[in-house]
């Protein structure tokens, strides 16, 4: 992963204005039946940028992030990921999905496969990697997330934090250019949250483009380049962590912050 990157910090004190656009959303709207879940969402995320999406429950954070790898289908507007526009064309969808890794709130590991096979399955069958190579890579990734000794267990035998780290390794095994996190720590006990956040921080430092939905304010303050605040399907405010947490512009942001801080 981007070894050439010589930056060792993330956060708003980085200058990314010259970086390429990785995710471009223009006026994205989505309805569930009559209910509008996304309302003209527009945002651009640069390469190597770490964006944290905040917002009250039901504000459309998951819906938006899931539109980006087409787990949900947007109905209006345009989404472009690394130069590929998401349309109904299956080939584009497959291409985007193999460049975008996703980590879910409920881990969603494959319970019938050992940890190592969870990680190697997609590289072998989607990336067409030779098995030996895929396994070496998987061991390296499991070391990176700190659990190489669990390779031959089944997911059901691991703790929640370990499972979530396997899920991160599984996503990284596809060598994605973008990682999406949808509340990766919300289903974890407090003592396990840190181990997952540490892995995510390390990932951010390595230069991965990341979009993270989370309620972990500490993580957002420390790692995020930008905060996007959503409410009722709209982007209400975009800002750096410093300004957003200390001096938000919008009324709704202030209300939200007063509730969670």
């Amino acid at each position, binding site marked *: 992963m981007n070894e050439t990157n010589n930056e060792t910090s993330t956060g708003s004190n980085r200058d990314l204005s010259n970086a390429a656009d990785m995710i471009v959303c223009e006026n994205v709207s989505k309805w569930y039946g009559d209910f509008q879940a996304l309302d003209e969402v527009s945002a651009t995320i640069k390469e190597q940028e770490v964006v944290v999406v905040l917002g009250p429950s039901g504000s459309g954070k998951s819906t938006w992030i899931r539109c980006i*790898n*087409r*787990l949900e289908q947007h109905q209006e507007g345009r989404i472009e990921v690394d130069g590929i526009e998401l349309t109904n064309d299956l080939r584009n969808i*497959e291409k985007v*999905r*193999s460049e*975008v*890794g*996703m980590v*879910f709130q*409920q881990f*969603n*590991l*494959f*319970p*019938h*496969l*050992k940890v*190592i*096979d969870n990680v*190697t*399955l*997609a590289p*072998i*069958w*989607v990336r*067409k*990697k*030779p098995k030996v190579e895929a*396994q070496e890579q998987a061991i390296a990734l499991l070391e990176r997330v700190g659990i190489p000794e669990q*390779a*031959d*267990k*089944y997911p*059901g*035998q691991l703790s929640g934090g370990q499972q979530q780290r396997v899920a991160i390794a*599984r*996503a990284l095994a*596809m060598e994605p250019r973008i990682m999406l996190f949808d509340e990766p720590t919300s289903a974890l006990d407090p003592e396990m949250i840190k181990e997952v956040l540490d892995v995510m921080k390390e990932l951010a430092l390595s230069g991965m483009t990341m979009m993270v939905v989370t309620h972990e304010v500490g993580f957002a303050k420390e790692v995020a380049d930008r905060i996007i605040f959503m409410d009722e399907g709209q982007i209400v405010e975009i800002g750096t962590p410093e300004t957003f947490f200390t001096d938000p512009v919008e009324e709704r942001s202030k209300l939200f912050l007063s509730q969670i801080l």
Partner: protein
Amino acid sequence: MSDFNVTGAEGTVSIKPPPETPKLPPRLWIKENLFSSPFNIFLTVASTGILLILGRGLLSFIFSHERQWGSTATNLRLLMTQAYPEEQYMRVWVCVGVIFTLTGLSMAVWNAGSRVALRRLGSFLLSTGVVIDILTLLAPFSSSATIIWLCVGTGISLFGGSLVKFSDEDKTMSVLTVTVIALAVAILSLWVVPYGHHSFVFERTPRSLAEAGTVALTTKLPWTIMLLIGIAAYFAGKAIREKVSQNVLRVSVLTIWFLAPPALLYLVLRDPDFDMGHVLNTDIPIFLVFAAVGAGLLFWLTRPTAGELGKVIAAITLLIGFGSFLTPMRMIIRILILLLAIFAISAPTFAGDTQTRRRYSLGWIGVSGVTCWLVTAINTPSTVEVPGSFFIGGVSLTLLIAIFTIVISFPLGILLALGRTSTMPIFRILCTWFIEFVRGIPLITILIFFSIMFPMFLPKEMEIGEVASIVIGYSLFSSAYLAENVRGGLQSVTRGQHEAADAVGMTTPQKTLFIVLPQALRVSIPPLVSHCIGVFKETSLLAIIGLFDILYIARNVIPNQTEFLGSVRENLLFVCLIYWILSYQMSKASQRLERRVGLGER
């Protein structure tokens, strides 16, 4: 799946055993469980009484002087294989031998068999002996027989009791050893105990002969050999297991299991009378052409970069396959084109490095080879002359139809279930209609239709045996039900699993094959097994359409023999016993399978 750091299927978790619940001594256990309250006492006494009365009734039925058990004993061969010619019987034993060999081999390869504590074995023997004693006292035996059986029962009890008393707390024995010992005792008894010599002797009247003495050599010798073969195969398997890699060994044994039924059926039992000229100048060239062209095509199609062109070519092959039904040509060519089309369409799913691609092409050569051989073998007349419409009957026919039906309807049922849950409306509607239609028709109607009418619908040059068309009909019927069981499993796979597979970029076939089906089938093991047991038992409907299955022989053939006029009930009881033994084995196997895949753990 992975090749390194294998530390046993269950991983390396070491679990501290839970504290043992103290075991009650028998007297206290009885007091606590059977005589704890007045109502409980009443229930215990009443149900014991009912059991005794039923047992007495059954025993007096079995041991009544009116029973002609000779009819079952003399006709055992008829019940097993119907009229397979005496002088060719070696073939049947070869088949049984192959199955025993494979069983022994598989048990070694899969490391089958748990261990049982000697104490538990002892208490089991103890209670068995007591049950035998009780039954002996209930049965209307002559006093000498009563004494013999009492001795046997008491002997077993004493042996079991001494095991319980004197063996160590944690001394165990492998279940396999126990089984082999039990089988060996049973087979040894054939040599020692004078069960009587039952047979038909055609020169005398009455033809049947039942005289005291041991069992005929033609029965006891082969069974002894079979047991030895099984044991030998087990140890051979153990020896091979040390040398060959697990995966290779398992895959090859599984392949042999799948090839065994058609091979035994068409090569050993029927002994096809090949017209070698025709085989050499037609069958083999056809196979070679398809094998070479197909392997080349598939090797090319599985290139990761084949892309759109690959899909187009696969679609064209499929079209040609269907189109081939419009023009006259050999059936085998049509079948091969269709098969190739299926392989071509699934090629992108299995694309990969050179090794994977080579394996896929080899897979095609294997499948097409087996298909060609099967078609040739089926169409070639048999050298074994057997009276009647089909060359084998009795238990063998029952098993044959059940096994083929189950093996065919499994993939078919899974495909139907996938079709019914697919997002493509054509498949969904077609599959739903098919399933609902088939489920709306009674099985017996389908069997009658396929045995009488189906052959008339075929094109003129095609012929199909009655048994083959019945298997087709029965498979269609069974697959509709099986599909519903699998669908239940498919629905139990959570949305999160689908999304996780989508998110790493798997295509729909990959997702189905690697993620959805394994989980769905695992959940559906219990209903699938009860479905299989149902398929096996319902083969008894074949009796109604006049096939010589075991029930038909027991009900209509034996009772009409001049020697055994009217001996229906004995044989029906025997048939019940056989059905029960086989079904019970299946359900035991399913319980083991469930434990093995850890269904309860999740």
